[in-house]
């Protein structure tokens, strides 16, 4: 009898003790295979390398070790759902689906399960309204900020008057690519430019007809919402029809080294939007080198370090880690759960002194998240590719975008969602 009691006690002890020892779990829905791997690999590497560095240098966040659980989605929504179901039971703090399609899929699921989603610079734009989407965050900027930033940049080049100019949008024919259309249409009305839409079907390797059309219609500017292999093909095709590269502006997902290098010297002058600074010229990389690269702990093959999308992945990890710190401070617990994480994300504030202390001075603009605004400040810069030096460099500051148009559209779209799904908008 005593033995039985002892066994039961020991067993319950183990069962209860396990959660106490738990780590901070960050599932990473990555895609290192398929047509989008070229964009997915650097981002996945950056994301997990930063967490590895925190584990090696600081022993995690606030003394609690971090565990990154990678799951391969191939940028496919059904595989993404499988990955979500597989990892959500592990105590996942926040999902970064790295795909607009998967984000759309996970918004209702994760909201019902009470796990926050951070779709950084992608996903559902109207999720910026935290009253309707309490569990979804898309700071520091969304696609509609992007669309407005492109138009603002063109306005700047033309001294504020683009009446009668033609702008073409080459986009991935999916939820992702269609996101900016509404905003661009509104802006076309406001500024009087002509918008033409050129969809490119998945995976985007075949774009001859779209670029023939561009050659025929001769738009003044081309902007692109592309991803994966579509980007390099578009830039190559633009070079083939001798489209002036400085008039070709991609979204921040269409502006990495892997997109421009295949076109060689012809890609010189190509522009893309930027959420953060390019390059490795930051003290943080010394720590990364010391604690991760030199120890051979880099994710993947380690050949993407310092590229734009690697930095983007790192930025995602940094914002997640900072939100954990806020959550730890606010809840007074070290070992937080998804509910505390959500509060941490909603109260996240990042300024320049913080970036400096992280070893990333002037890496990205200030950021402040609130219940009403899950989308951040929406500050966007423009970067340009130098094919000779093989470097991206910022050619503008991080500038605000057209808030009037965007906020109106966000309110409209999110209230439609709230009505469809019987959500009463309120702060949690």
């Amino acid at each position: 009898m005593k033995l039985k009691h002892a066994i039961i006690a020991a067993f319950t002890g183990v069962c209860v003790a396990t959660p106490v020892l738990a780590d901070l779990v960050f599932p990473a829905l990555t895609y290192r295979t398929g047509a989008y791997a070229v964009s997915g690999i650097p981002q996945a590497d950056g994301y997990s390398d930063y967490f590895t560095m925190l584990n090696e240098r600081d022993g995690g966040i606030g003394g609690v070790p971090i565990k990154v659980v990678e799951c391969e989605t191939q940028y496919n929504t059904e595989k993404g759902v499988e990955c979500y179901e597989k990892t959500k039971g592990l105590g996942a703090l926040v999902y970064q689906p790295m795909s607009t399609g998967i984000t759309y899929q996970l918004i209702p699921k994760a909201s019902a399960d009470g796990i926050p989603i951070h779709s950084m610079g992608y996903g559902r734009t109207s999720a910026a309204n935290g009253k309707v989407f309490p569990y979804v965050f898309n700071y520091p900027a969304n696609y509609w900020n992007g669309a407005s930033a492109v138009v603002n940049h063109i306005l700047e080049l033309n001294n504020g008057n683009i009446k009668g100019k033609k702008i073409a949008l080459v986009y991935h024919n999916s939820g992702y690519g269609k996101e900016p259309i509404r905003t661009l249409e509104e802006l076309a009305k406001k500024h009087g430019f002509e918008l033409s839409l050129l969809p490119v079907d998945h995976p985007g390797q075949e774009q001859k007809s779209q670029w023939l059309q561009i050659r025929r219609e001769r738009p003044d500017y081309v902007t692109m919402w592309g991803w994966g292999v579509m980007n390099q093909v578009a830039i190559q095709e633009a070079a083939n029809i001798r489209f002036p590269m400085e008039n070709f502006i991609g979204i921040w997902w269409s502006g990495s080294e892997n997109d421009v290098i295949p076109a060689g010297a012809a890609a010189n002058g190509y522009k893309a939007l930027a959420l953060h600074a390019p390059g490795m010229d930051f003290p943080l990389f010394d720590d990364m080198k010391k604690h991760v690269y030199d120890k051979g702990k880099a994710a993947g093959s380690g050949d993407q370090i310092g590229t734009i999308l690697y930095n983007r992945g790192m930025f995602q990890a940094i914002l997640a880690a900072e939100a954990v710190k806020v959550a730890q401070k606010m809840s007074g617990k070290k070992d937080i759960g998804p509910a505390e994480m959500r509060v941490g994300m909603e109260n996240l504030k990042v300024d320049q002194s913080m970036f400096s202390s992280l070893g990333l001075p002037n890496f990205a603009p200030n950021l402040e998240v609130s219940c009403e605004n899950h989308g951040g400040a929406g500050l966007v810069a423009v970067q340009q590719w130098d094919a000779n030096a093989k470097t991206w460099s910022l050619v503008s500051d991080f500038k605000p975008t057209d808030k009037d148009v965007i906020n109106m559209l966000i309110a409209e779209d999110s209230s439609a969602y709230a009505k469809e799904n019987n959500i009463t908008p309120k702060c949690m």
Partner: protein
Amino acid sequence: MFYREVGEFKTSYRSDQQTFPIALDRTGFLVTLAFAFVIIPLTMSEYWAQAVFLPFLIFGIAAIGLNILTGYCGQVSLGSGGFMAVGAYSCYKLMTGFPDMNIVVCILLSGGVTAFVGLLFGLPSLRIKGFYLAVATLAAQFFLVWMFNKVGWFYNYSASGQITAPEREIFGFIVTGAKAETLPVYYVCLVMLFSLAILARNLTRGAFGRKWMAIRDMDIAAEIIGVNPLMAKLTAFAVSSFYVGISGALLFALYLGAVEVGEAFSIQKSFLILFMIIIGGLGSIFGSLVGAAFMIGMPVLLKNLLVTNLGWPGDIAAHLEFMIVGLLIVVFLMLEPHGLAMLWRIIKEKLRIWPFAH
């Protein structure tokens, strides 16, 4: 030892013509049913339900549908993905247009709409055959996907072009939308598959099925003995599309919840369903289900074995998965070109005379 008719005396046509004439088979069938209706729901985890069982049930319906067309009637179709999209989008339009309509009615009506669309795309089959028909159905696939992407009315002009399933319930259980619970969803899919499979079995052994098979085996001979090829082919297209449409509606409303046509219903889906029936066995309901189980379960099992148990990196496992699944398909087809259903038939024959050689 096993599968013996010895001692089983049939005294009526009804018992002689039943689906499972051998007692052991009948028991096996009932045990499987008990498993599917009671034991699996009691024991399955959320992950297994979402990753394996629900997709299996849904694609099982699609595989039966395509098998009716390709396996029983001999008309090759590469448009299944497009027809699934028709089912999904009509379900969405019905759900949003008539909020009070029961979800099961919505799904059945979507099947009906798809049957009509399938009928239209089946018309060319009267003139063209074989590979040429495959190309014509391929056109259906691309046209339908293009249309759902292009025409805003189908997705209620949403900004992203996605369709999202609103919340609906059956007997008070929420089965669609964010708060849907897995168990009721599982039961809806299971009951759908079960009743549609029974319907298919009875259709294929009745007058309709015999006409389809006559057309498949030799259309001119069938016409001479009095089978109307127009009716036979078009009914096959309609019934097949009905099944595929229901499967598409279930995939959208109950499983995925939000769908983007270019990705969820691409040509890949058409191939997936075609592989299911080729591997499972053409002209067999059982084969459709086995094929669906194989094509859905194999990648998940491999992924779990390689990544979770052996700790391999996800990308290498994903690449290996392609190779292993591909290799398995080739090996299966070399060893048994008539699919897993034929393998099962051979096993049964062998068991019947076991332990003797003849």
